[in-house]
């Protein structure tokens, strides 16, 4: 353990922590939205994140469309794929024990990850950073790569945007109502199945967006979502599934915590989030922001 830490290391690791936190926030937000309405734990969230990155890579390789169009297209394309999954597969499990949803989406993960590993190998492909975001600022306390700052910024904007849609718009209020009482909402003439499909697609699109953001940093690899999704599960358990704002705050917060751990106690950096989860479970089983059901 080191207590005498150079400022550069501290700021640097906190920044990296914020970046990780951005991905945790984006993904746990999507998971929370999907769980809220479908009562399904979308295990394949990590695989859909991977698909987003692959679509971006594919767009670049085959059509020459770069990063900026990919930011919009990948979520749309993967979102459409999400609609396909929901309509074809998940709908058949409506009414069954939610554990079946977990198992089905786990199967989808294995299928997608295996398929992509066969096609592309498991170590992944490079994806270049967009020229506009290359380079960085040489600040007195650290060298700040531009791209990484962009990732944190855009994630914050998207997360808060989604929160605003859900908490402040008519669509969002219908969504929230359908979570509470679907039959009643459909009695009002609102097409609940379509709402469910749209919700799933939205959650999936968020995952895909995260994938595109990750592509230049983490390389585009079939297994990029595999270990990430488990950390996101822990984030969701800690934050509690009830609150949208809760998952955003928890995501970023845990990312920063991880970064700080890397500075002071690097050996524990992989496990600190799980340790926090264990502690939260003992003290407040519903999660930090969760509602007791």
């Amino acid at each position, binding site marked *: 353990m080191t207590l005498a830490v150079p400022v550069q290391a501290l700021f640097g*690791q906190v920044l990296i922590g914020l970046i990780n936190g951005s991905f945790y926030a984006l993904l746990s937000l999507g998971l929370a939205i999907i769980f809220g309405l479908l009562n399904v734990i979308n295990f394949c969230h990590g695989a859909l994140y991977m698909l987003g990155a692959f679509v971006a890579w594919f767009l670049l390789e085959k059509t020459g469309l770069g990063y900026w169009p990919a930011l919009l297209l990948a979520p749309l394309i993967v979102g459409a794929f999400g609609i396909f999954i929901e309509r074809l597969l998940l709908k058949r499990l409506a009414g069954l024990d939610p554990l079946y949803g977990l198992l089905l989406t786990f199967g989808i993960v294995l299928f997608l990850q295996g398929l992509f590993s066969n096609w592309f*190998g*498991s*170590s992944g492909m490079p994806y270049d950073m967009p020229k506009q975001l290359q380079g960085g600022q040489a600040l007195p306390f*650290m*060298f700040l790569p531009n791209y*990484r700052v962009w990732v944190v910024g855009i994630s914050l904007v998207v997360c808060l945007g989604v929160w605003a849609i859900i908490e402040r718009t008519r669509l969002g209020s219908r969504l929230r109502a359908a979570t509470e009482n679907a039959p009643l909402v459909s009695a009002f003439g609102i097409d609940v199945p379509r709402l469910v499909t749209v919700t799933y697609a939205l959650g999936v699109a968020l995952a895909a967006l995260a994938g595109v953001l990750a592509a230049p940093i983490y*390389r585009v690899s079939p297994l990029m979502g595999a270990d990430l999704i488990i950390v996101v599960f822990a984030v969701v358990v800690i934050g509690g599934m009830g609150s949208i704002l809760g998952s955003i705050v928890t995501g970023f917060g845990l990312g920063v915590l991880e970064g700080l751990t890397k500075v002071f106690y690097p050996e524990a950096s992989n496990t600190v989030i799980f340790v926090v989860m264990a502690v939260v479970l003992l003290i407040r089983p519903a999660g930090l922001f969760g509602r007791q059901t």
Partner: protein
Amino acid sequence: MKTFAVATFAVATIAVATAARADFTDGVIKIGVLNDASGLYADLSGKGGMVAAQMAVDEMGGKIGKTPIELIYADHQNKPDIGAGIARQWFDADHVDAIVDVPTSSVALAVAQVVKEKNKVFLANGPGTSDLTGSKCSPNTVHWAYDTYALANVTGKATVLSGGKTWFFLTADYAFGQALERDTTKVVEANGGKILGGVKHPLNTSDFSSFLLQAQSSGANVVGLANAGGDTINSIKAAHEFGLTKGGQKLAGLLIFLTDIHSLGLDTAQGLLFSSSFYWDRDAKTRAWSKKFAEKYNGRMPTMVQAGVYASVLHYLKTLKATQADGDGKAVVDAMKKMPTDDNLFGKGTIRADGRKIHSFYLYEAKKPSESKSEWDLYKLVKEIPGDQAFRPLTEGGCSMVSAAK
């Protein structure tokens, strides 16, 4: 009539005698090529290893006497349990006599154990750990292409002597990285350098940002990359992203393959100093062989490991031709050690008592983009170091077979 009978009898006797002489188990000589087909080490050998092995088999005519030579391939996915499981099955159920390649030192160590247990032959080319001929040496192992000691001795020494006095390591946290860090530390300290610290990263890491930050804050002259393949490529890219070289620090790529430089591109890789036992463009003989290899492998030039696969399989087969038996792995390896080696890729050399193949090692520098005339024209030679100076002296490895001989 009598002459006919005598002649038939004579021919029959000779036939029986020659058949009896050739003692190849299961009537076939089967060599298994085991490496990483799709992961972070796929480029340095992968399916190209199979191509190289096949070239050696073809050169021997595809058979020894009447016994055919067969090749079989498997992907160990860089996991010791999978690699050892495949080796075991190959020996128990598939009549395999020798295993060649096996990058990823932890897998190689596991496979070496199985080979020793079953008394077969292991021609190690992919793995780096010098323990294969040191503390974990075995009478059934031949370690061919390179090892961590030679890398440390050549690249490490050259870097220290050119001004890189203080070091910080970025180490892949498994047998290979640990061995490379250990061997390089010895060399650096022996030449007046100092190790300021290091950080260990998991195998197959894609994001090196937090590790590089630690390297930067250490203030060391040199950031030593004790990793390989995909990990090295990612480390170098991240170093550029975080302005490591702008801050005055140097990168030392302790194990770099042709395919790494090719993947990075000379813009990023130029000036990198590294060592290798083989380069396709070194002389007329290596060029001729490499062009043939490239024709069979999508125009890709061979790496040091693929060259080693070819050369070691060739020597193995030549030895089998002389011994006419492959059942006793230890006996075959002993015969390989007695016969001096000579091929177009590594020149003349020998295999020592501890299994270490001795040949020259070369210090290379990655060319500047302006200096490169073709896609694979990537290296320029800095120095040649003869084998007896590059590799660890026989008595220093801690190999039990060596002290026993004394």
